[in-house]
């Protein structure tokens, strides 16, 4: 673990620089440039709000904000998981030519995703103001929830990154898994209300699936102004830390062999 922190200290500047570089190159040659970072999430929100709010007739309070909070958390999770599986292979040139702790690649990637999530969150706040969601100081509790989300996905990302090197078709598997989790996480519906008749299923979906849980807590904090479930949040945070430790261990043990495989 000490090696991990030393490496982070040594390479975090590179991680930041390379994240900036990637963001810059992403917008360098598109017509609307950085506006896409705003247009894209807003459009998704409009689509989901229309389909699930109007077509499927959902009477959730502040439905647009409700969807947007879900999307913000989901997109970060989705990008991290999809991104990490192929990360080593996509950086083949780098991995075979220079030594770099492999989680630095993930760290750098996560910075770009965090940045996008930040934008999404800002739009979300604007939307909440427009919909006149009452303000309360408990909203600040969203910060620890995001920290838990980050730690958890970073841990999962490291482990997936490792297996992504040797398992060619892991990305197919994660795609299916992500699709499933997407629909089960209640990005555009309220698990508790929709599944009122199956209380055991609600418990299962909300407690076992960290993303659903985190989304739900974010909504509780931001839209209802209530306190989150601190105990469960702590447990998931702890699981996240354990996953990170496992991931760091696995990568330290194997990273020097990656160059031979890819």
């Amino acid at each position, binding site marked *: 673990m000490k090696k991990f922190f030393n490496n982070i200290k040594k390479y975090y*500047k590179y991680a930041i620089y390379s994240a900036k570089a990637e963001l810059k*190159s992403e917008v360098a040659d598109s017509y609307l440039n950085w506006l896409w970072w705003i247009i894209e999430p807003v459009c998704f929100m409009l689509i989901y709000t229309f389909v699930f709010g109007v077509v499927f007739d959902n009477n959730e309070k502040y439905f647009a904000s409700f969807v947007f909070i879900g999307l913000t958390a989901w997109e970060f999770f989705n990008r991290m998981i999809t991104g990490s599986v192929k990360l080593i292979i996509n950086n083949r040139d780098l991995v075979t030519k220079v030594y770099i702790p492999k989680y630095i690649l993930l760290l750098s990637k996560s910075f770009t995703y965090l940045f996008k999530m930040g934008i999404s969150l800002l739009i979300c706040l604007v939307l909440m103001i427009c919909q006149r969601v009452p303000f309360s100081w408990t909203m600040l509790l969203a910060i620890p929830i995001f920290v838990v989300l980050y730690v958890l996905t970073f841990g999962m990302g490291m482990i997936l990154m490792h297996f992504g090197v040797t398992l060619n078709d892991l990305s197919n598997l994660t795609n299916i898994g992500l699709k499933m989790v997407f629909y089960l996480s209640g990005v555009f519906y309220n698990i508790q209300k929709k599944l009122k008749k199956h209380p055991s299923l609600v418990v299962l979906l909300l407690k076992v699936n960290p993303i659903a849980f985190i989304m739900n807590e974010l909504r509780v904090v931001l839209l209802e102004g209530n306190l989150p479930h601190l105990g469960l949040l702590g447990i998931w945070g702890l699981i996240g830390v354990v996953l990170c430790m496992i991931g760091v261990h696995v990568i330290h043990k194997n990273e020097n062999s990656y160059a*031979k495989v890819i």
Partner: protein
Amino acid sequence: METNSEIVSSKSKKEIAITVKNLHVTYRGLKKTSIRASWTKLGSRVELFRALKGVSFEVEKGKILGIIGKNGSGKSTMLRAIAGIFSPDEGKIDLHGNTISLLSIGVGFNKKLTGKENIYLSGMLLGFSEEQIREKEQEIIDFADIGKFMYKPVKTYSSGMYSKLAFAITAILETDIMLIDEVLSVGDAQFKAKSYNKMKELISDENRTVLIVSHNLDTIASLCDEVLWLNDGNLMEIGPAEEILPRYREFMGQQDPEKES
């Protein structure tokens, strides 16, 4: 050659820069597989490829060691193991605390960014701090000599300009030990001469230890003090260039006449 031998004789205390002991590298361990394949092939034996079979040698500080051998004899594998890109399966590599870099072209370049931004990106990846790069920035820009293209995205470069910039970065940001894998011919004739001279200047620095892999025996003969000859992952001989090279030429002549360079 005279200057090189002078350097050697002036260094009487024989500080060792690299120690390689009984180095084994096997391509195995993690084998690429798919989920289906891992079901059907459970229990079948993985084939091994032993790239290096117990190589040991030492390099003194300030020396220039050429590594020769036919294709697939483990030269690049050894450089990469020494650079720490992957770990040896057996044996030890001790760098005695020296910084090291594998001189390779365009590591970590982002083609959509300008040349200048890529200097930072590539430099930081090689382990230099932002300040160190800023100090050397102008020198790199001058050496690369690609004019206003420095401020244009790298994807607009010709392949020659690309390698010029890449070479400039790795050549100017120096480390104690440099590993060079066949990169001496880059760009047009003029730049080639310039980079060859720069290379010569870089590697004849008394404090810099250099390992060069090349198939061009003339290059090896003119640059190196010592030569290490690898054959099929085994160390054949190590010693002064003028002794080893004739024997190597003879050996290659017997083996496969058209491969000789």
